[in-house]
């Protein structure tokens, strides 16, 4: 049976050219970049070349890129590092309700440490309103963190507009661009952000390498203390092969970005347009402002997990909610924040495409998925609803 992978927001397969670039650093080029002799110098050069390439992907300067082990670390580093560095100016931060757990749980940690946190609401498409941001800023606010795009519902947030209102009040802006970097154009100058998180395995690079863009001149308290790797801002011996891989993946993504979007967007639209014709299936997120390879739905009367299991039996792999929520078997906080009733949120499913998906793979998906829905509805004890219908008996769709 052919295996069809539609879960690229969880991770991407490694580009073979990226693996080729990494291989020498698993073998003969094993040096520690801090060593003064030739092995160290070559490893150090490899990291600095990768830094240039990653910076190039987001239009930053190389010195503004700090490598981390993953996106979660970069998000922890950004939020905690800026909140602590600026705590004498104020102890209030804003984060949106669309954020990944690595932002939300760091915000909760900061709350327990004496900071005030405002969780910004979103509309039914998952969009943060810049006007709400403006009204939420106080004279104690030092930092705002809003995701560039949600990997759960695909909505791309109005970061430029948020930056505009933040800058009027001298507030620093971080964006989690894990879902966007390498997938849509991401330009730190154009967005105007001060900090930006990205991770290699979301653009056909390896796991184990990610980066935080920190605008030049910005002070940030380290998350990991130790040696002087990453200009004394992130300690720990570098994962040289993964960083080299991230650099190569960034170089390829920059060159192929337009081609990728052009290829993936029609496939995504085919899924969305087909599912629009299936009864009681709702597209989640914004139809227009969405990731080009992302189609997400809530299916009434069925649990997302059941759909995943039946689809995986047919060789189709996808996700329900975020990668973490999927295992936690609970309604996604992102969907609830968008006003989706908890019953309907249980029927969440996300198809995220990648360059390995052929058009005929999508043909298979749009044939099998409605069939799976039909089969599950026949056996669902909730076929009459989840009990969250309104007075007229209509399901409370967003």
């Amino acid at each position, binding site marked *: 049976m052919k295996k069809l992978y539609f879960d690229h927001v969880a991770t991407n397969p490694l580009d073979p050219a990226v693996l080729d670039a990494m291989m020498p650093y698993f073998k003969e080029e094993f040096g520690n970049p801090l060593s003064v002799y030739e092995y160290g110098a070559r490893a150090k050069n490899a990291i600095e070349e990768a830094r240039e390439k990653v910076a190039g992907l987001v239009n930053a300067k190389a010195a503004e890129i700090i490598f981390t082990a993953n996106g979660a670390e970069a998000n922890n580093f950004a939020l905690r590092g800026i909140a602590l560095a600026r705590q004498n100016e104020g102890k209030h931060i804003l984060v949106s309700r669309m954020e990944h757990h690595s932002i939300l749980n760091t915000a909760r940690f900061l709350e327990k440490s004496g900071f005030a946190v405002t969780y910004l609401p979103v509309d039914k498409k998952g969009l943060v309103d810049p006007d709400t941001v403006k009204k939420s800023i106080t004279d104690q606010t030092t930092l705002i963190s809003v995701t560039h795009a949600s990997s759960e519902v695909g909505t791309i947030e109005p970061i430029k507009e948020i930056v505009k209102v933040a800058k009027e009040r001298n507030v620093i802006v971080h964006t989690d661009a894990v879902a966007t970097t390498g997938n849509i154009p991401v330009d730190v100058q154009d967005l105007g952000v001060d900090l930006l998180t990205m991770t290699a395995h979301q653009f056909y690079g390896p796991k184990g390498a990610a980066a935080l863009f920190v605008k030049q001149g910005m*002070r940030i308290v380290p998350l990991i203390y130790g040696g002087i790797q990453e200009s004394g801002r992130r300690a720990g011996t570098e994962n040289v092969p993964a960083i080299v891989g991230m650099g190569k993946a960034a170089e390829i993504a920059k060159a192929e970005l337009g081609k990728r979007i052009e290829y993936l967007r029609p496939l995504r639209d085919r899924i969305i347009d087909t599912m629009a014709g299936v009864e009681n299936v709702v597209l989640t997120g914004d139809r227009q402002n969405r990731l080009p390879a992302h189609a997400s739905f809530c299916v009434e009367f069925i649990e997302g997990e059941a759909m995943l299991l039946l689809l995986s039996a047919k060789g189709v792999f996808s996700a329900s909610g975020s990668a973490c929520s999927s295992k936690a078997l609970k309604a996604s906080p992102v969907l609830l924040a968008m006003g989706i009733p908890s019953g309907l949120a249980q029927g969440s499913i996300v198809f995220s495409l990648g360059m390995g998906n052929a058009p005929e793979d999508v043909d298979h998906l749009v044939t099998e998925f409605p069939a799976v829905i039909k089969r599950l509805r026949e056996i669902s004890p909730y076929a009459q609803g989840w009990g969250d219908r309104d007075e007229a008996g209509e399901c409370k769709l967003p």
Partner: protein
Amino acid sequence: MKFVHGVKPDVTTDIVYMMCPMHLLKLEEQIKELEPGQILEIMTDYDGALEDIPAWCEKTGNEFLGIDETPDFYKFYIKKHAR
């Protein structure tokens, strides 16, 4: 320790929150860029710099002018030797 106020530096380097020994690496790197007689200001929150920077100046023949304290960090002033 020598305390100074109102020194006008030619170049400023901000390494607040950067780990040890970045204060010595940056110091060496920045001093190389200066003309003899020019003044470097280094901002750091690292307490160990209170010993290290004057000692480095003595060893290298550069003039340690002193420090200025702020609530969060120190400002070190170093004048590049005339040689």
